[in-house]
């Protein structure tokens, strides 16, 4: 048993942090926040690609580094810390993982090297409107290998080169790959998002060419796998963000004076920060377990992913809100970074579906394991 990053992974993590501190200062994230027509930071994206991060877990034969998922988790945690304004999650945690899990060799050969090389940006198009995703109610259809329907919201849908789309055909729900850059019959409308540092779109498919990913009619199970794998990686981004909030709150509390002493000397603030710490450590432990489950096969993943996601959402949400609260009025200004975490924590909390879905999945797993 070994329940921590290895020394190599710790080294990777330190290097990643050093790299991101230089390559992604908060000004980089703000440059995307502040300009409507800049959906992501391309220079940062190129640097991240050069670091080989988009191909971390892609096998060497397909142009990647062939590292393990725990290495990717280490990178995710660091990207979360800096609120990186790039389509890494959509491309790597979701799109690449889906191809790795369900792609035939010819699909892997075509797509994975492109991801590793930074030529492909992926996205996942499942939602069709307000409220909980209901696979049975999805109206996007595939007929004669052509997609018809509209998806909203699609994170990074405006900048992606490829999408994985959930849609029905005669076999039931399936996953389909669309080459957004070349396929005809694709209309994309950028939409505003609560977190402008990550772009989003509505995508309308009007007979767009598509290609099946994996077995027919297995879309529900495939989607579960994709979501579970992404959930663990999201949990690490959330962990990085939550830790950063705690650090920021701590730093501010140590320099802000009220009534003649630093506010960090008041129990109300001390205990608030301790509460954040407790939640973050729980989230870290669940994220670690999720990282292990990612590599250790399917059987533990649904429970581990749900727990990592619930803990990750809760800790980042709490840390982001209480970081702002610790800052007081100044925390509510645009110029101070508190709201960037608040926005990103919401984005990460919702992008794979809200917390109640995951709580429900968690309890269903517990019920299955605790049959009388």
């Amino acid at each position, binding site marked *: 048993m070994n329940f921590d990053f290895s020394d190599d992974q710790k080294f990777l993590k330190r290097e990643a942090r050093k790299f991101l501190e230089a390559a992604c200062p908060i000004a980089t994230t703000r440059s995307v926040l502040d300009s409507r027509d800049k959906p992501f930071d391309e220079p940062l994206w190129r640097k991240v690609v050069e670091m080989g991060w988009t191909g971390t877990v892609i096998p060497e034969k397909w142009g990647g580094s062939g590292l393990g998922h725990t290495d990717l988790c280490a990178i995710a945690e660091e990207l979360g810390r800096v609120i990186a304004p790039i389509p890494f999650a959509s491309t790597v945690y979701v799109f690449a993982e889906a191809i790795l899990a369900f792609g035939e060799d010819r699909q892997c050969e075509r797509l994975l090297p492109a991801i590793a090389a930074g030529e492909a940006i992926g996205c996942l198009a*499942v*939602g069709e*409107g*307000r*409220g*909980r*995703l*209901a696979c*049975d*109610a999805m109206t996007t259809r595939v007929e004669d290998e052509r997609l018809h329907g509209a998806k*909203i*919201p699609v*994170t990074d849908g405006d900048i992606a080169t490829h999408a994985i789309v959930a849609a029905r055909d005669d076999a039931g729900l399936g996953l389909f790959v669309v080459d957004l850059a070349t396929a005809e019959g694709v209309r994309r*409308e950028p*939409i*505003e*998002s*609560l*977190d402008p540092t990550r772009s*989003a779109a*509505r995508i309308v498919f009007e007979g767009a060419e598509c290609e099946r990913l994996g077995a027919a009619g297995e879309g529900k199970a495939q989607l579960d796998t994709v979501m579970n794998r992404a959930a663990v990686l999201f949990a690490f981004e959330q962990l990085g963000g939550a830790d950063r909030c705690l650090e920021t709150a701590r730093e501010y509390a140590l*320099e*802000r*004076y*009220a*009534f*003649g*002493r*630093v506010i960090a000397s*008041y129990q*109300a*603030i001390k205990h608030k920060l301790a509460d954040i710490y407790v939640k973050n450590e729980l989230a870290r432990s669940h994220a670690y377990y999720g990282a292990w489950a990612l590599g250790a096969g399917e059987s533990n993943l649904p429970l581990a992913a749900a727990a990592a996601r619930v803990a990750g959402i809760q800790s980042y*949400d709490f840390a982001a*809100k209480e970081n*702002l*609260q610790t800052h*007081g*009025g*100044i*925390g*509510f*200004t*645009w*110029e*101070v970074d*508190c*709201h960037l975490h*608040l926005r990103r924590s*919401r*984005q990460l*909390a*919702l*992008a*794979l*579906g*809200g*917390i*109640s*879905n995951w709580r*429900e999945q968690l309890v269903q797993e517990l019920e299955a394991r605790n049959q009388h």
Partner: protein
Amino acid sequence: MDFNDSPEEAEFRARARAWLAANAPEVNWAQLDQSDEPAMKAAGQAWQARKADAGFACISWPREWGGGGESPVMQAIFDEEEGAYGIAFRFFGIGLGMCLPTLMAVGDAQTCKRFVGPALRGDEIWCQLFSEPGAGSDVAASRTRAVRANDGSGDWIVNGQKVWTSGAHYSDYGLLLARTDPDVPKHKGLTMFWLDMRSPGIEVRPIHQASGDSEFNEVFFADVRIRDCQRLGEIGEGWKVALITLMNERLAVGMGSGPGWRELLALARELPGADGRPAVEDQALREKLADWYVGAEGIRLTRLRVMTALSRGQAPGPEASIGKIVSARQMQDVATEALDRLDQFGIVAGEAGGADIAAFDYNFFFGGALRIAGGSDEILKNIIAERVLGLPADIRVDRDVAFKDIPRGR
């Protein structure tokens, strides 16, 4: 305990209702462009003047200053009836809720005569200049300086900066808390003034808020000259005067606005939940709705208890202090829950999201602000603990120190 109107109250309500039916603005409220501030201000001022003419502005203020001389309960009744028309202007709350009551408490007759009437009619709008970048929770740590002009005029020259000033950009007058003596402990070196917001040397800059909006301002003072007759209360007694304003603030501020349990309930009826059934069938959401109703309605009822005390001529009890603690947190929680229940669609903002989601988005951010504005959660709990429950004050390292010697960080 009686929630029905007394005969007097019923008579007043009937009168208010009839007057409103005849006089309420015939606009489609929902279609007004709230962002067109000049138009909204003009409409608000017209409506305020019409109410004043009919004796329905500031119903519980003394008649001598143009008020109605009625009990606060009558004001509440009028507010209820007016509320039914959806009429809500944001321009007058701070002036009529905080500044003018302070003026009436400490100003001389001449000052009151000059200002109360125009404010009550909506002709003149007031703002409150208390908070500073280094004096948020600790309002008495204000550093904005007022020093005597060295020309023997007795005038004061003001330099410094205020922050979080609602409506500074459309206000005519302001209530200013300034430091007149940095060599004495901080509560003792403050003095209160009123000033003309168009005085030379005042610059108002909107604050770009975390929410993306700009509802508040920074106000900068560069050698702003004010006369000594603009002083409210004695020199060095500013903190006592400020406490009057802050007490009124705590009574006035505090209600969360925008979508609450009612709007979340409405949303949840439309929203698909588990297995495609409406989200409102989710028992976890229902339990939260129940608790939020208990919170929101509990605060409303608590205000009625305060009103009862006022109408009996008693001082409002400490229960008034709980409002903002409950409602600010709830504003944030309800909005978060709404976004959660929208599931992936919860990230959608702006036009693609729709007006109802935009309102929850707004509250998601603004709930965080309300937990800070007008006394943070932490400060309000301190106030309850110390002033209501009589527990000891926090250990104060700045109590007997000259203001200029108090540690203040960067």
